[in-house]
């Protein structure tokens, strides 16, 4: 593309807020059962992830993988891809994220989640809680109908933000493999929302910032490299 400096971010946005938020209205009304199931799966995953012990880690990862699969097929592929030229490039990344979660679940020692009481745990829980319980209602402040709510498990933004929270709650260095896709998505989405003049654009950016800070503090303290005490549980 020549004269690239003369282009702004807005030049690459080819849809209006009206059309964007109608995506969620159509998704929520057409696929209400799947949308509800995905939200419930997210809440169950949240509950499993903050428990002490090893129980439920595989289930949590499988539920998260299914959620990412549903977001890819339901939201990205059918609804968002026709209006946004960049989405086809993201679909393989979302599928990869879901497959990575399945791989982590299938390992002999699955990725482990758990409350540790440190900064990352707090940030992780806050991000998940916002993604599941707050994000759907943020649109009301901007004057949108509740039927256009972006729900964790079906809409990409709250799912990515919540997933970053789950990654912060996890242990071990391998968890960072799951980081790039939701992190890049949050940056992209924040830019999209900013161009559309939506105040909610700040939320994905704050999630990115908290994740990077939490990750850095975890690496510095080495807390996630220490092994968990044996709780006698199994998966």
């Amino acid at each position, binding site marked *: 593309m020549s004269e690239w400096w003369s282009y702004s971010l807005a030049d690459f946005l080819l*849809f209006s807020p009206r059309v964007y938020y109608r995506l969620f209205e159509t998704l929520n009304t057409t696929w209400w059962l799947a949308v509800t199931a995905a939200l419930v799966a997210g809440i169950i995953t949240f509950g499993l992830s903050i428990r002490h012990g090893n129980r439920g880690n595989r289930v949590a990862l499988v539920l998260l993988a299914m959620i990412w699969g549903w977001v890819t097929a339901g939201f990205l592929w059918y*609804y968002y891809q026709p209006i946004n030229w960049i989405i086809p490039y993201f679909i393989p990344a979302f599928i990869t994220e879901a497959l990575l979660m399945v791989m982590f679940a299938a390992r002999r020692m699955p990725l482990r989640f758990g409350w540790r009481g440190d900064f990352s745990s707090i940030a992780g829980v806050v991000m998940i809680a916002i993604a599941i319980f707050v994000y759907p209602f943020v649109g009301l402040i901007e004057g949108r109908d509740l039927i256009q709510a972006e729900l964790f498990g079906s809409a990409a933004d709250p799912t990515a933000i919540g997933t970053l929270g789950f990654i912060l709650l996890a242990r071990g260095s391998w968890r960072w493999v799951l980081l790039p896709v939701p992190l890049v998505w949050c940056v992209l989405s924040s830019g999209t929302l900013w161009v559309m003049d939506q105040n909610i654009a700040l939320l994905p950016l704050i999630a990115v910032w908290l994740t990077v800070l939490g990750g850095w503090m975890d690496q510095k303290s080495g807390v996630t490299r220490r092994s968990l005490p044996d709780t006698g549980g199994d998966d």
Partner: protein
Amino acid sequence: MFLLGRRNFLRGATAIGATAGLGAIKPLWAQTLDNRAVLDVIKKPIPSTGEMIPAVGLGSWITFNVGNDPVLRDQCANVMQAFFDGGGRMIDSSPMYGSSQDVIGYGLDKLGARDRVFSTDKVWTSDDGAEQIAETSDYWNIDKFDLLQVHNLVGINDNLPLLFDMKDAGRLRYVGVTTSHGRRTDDLIAVMKNTPLDFVQVTYNPVDRKVEDYLLPLALERGIAVIVNRPFQGGHLIDRLEGEKLPDFAAEIEVRSWAQLILKYLISHPAVTCPIPATTQPMHAMENMQAATGPMPDDDMRQRIAAVIGVL
């Protein structure tokens, strides 16, 4: 003194419709069309052939990119209906505009309007232009386009000869080139000077007037039709003027909104063939077509329009 802005005009008309026509089946814009004589829309010649086309077209950038949403697709079809019923013909799109081409095809199917449309699209690729044009034809469900343009001069060394070959083979009626936001002006001028273009598409409105200096006179001299994109700066210009009083002289040219004033400013330039405003509202599409009727501003009034809008 007219006090109506574009949205106030729409609100007022909607309110009148709501009170006067509660039992009516047709939407207000359709009733309004039914109740008026067929618009005597100004037509302008395409210099290379002399064919006359209505002086206002319909753009699809952003407004028609509504994906698979059935409600919004029907709304777009309503816009097309109002546009055709108002006497419009040229609809413009691009492979760059997401689902817009597909939505236009849906609208043409629904309205059965393939014989009414002046089909205008673009080729926008550095790879296989022929393949992209074939996809575009599938979206529109149309065998032969009236006009295809090289979008933003992308891949022009391959795509322009391709379009001229199609024209020579009788598979295309007109060939054009587009730019927007005043980009690649030097390249565009070179193409206009050295190739037998039928159309050129540029950004022009009472605030973005650089094309008046050289491009528009060159188009006149070379006999190239001019399509004007971003007549309302993608809607920003109308938003800025919302709530402002129309100047007194607007009454002289039978203008009832800022949108109509801007369109009359553009249409009245001798080099301009057809501005292509985009809209999501059937009422706006009709209002835009009304801008191509009645008296037009002379040079003096055009300067006053630009001056008034420039300071607001």
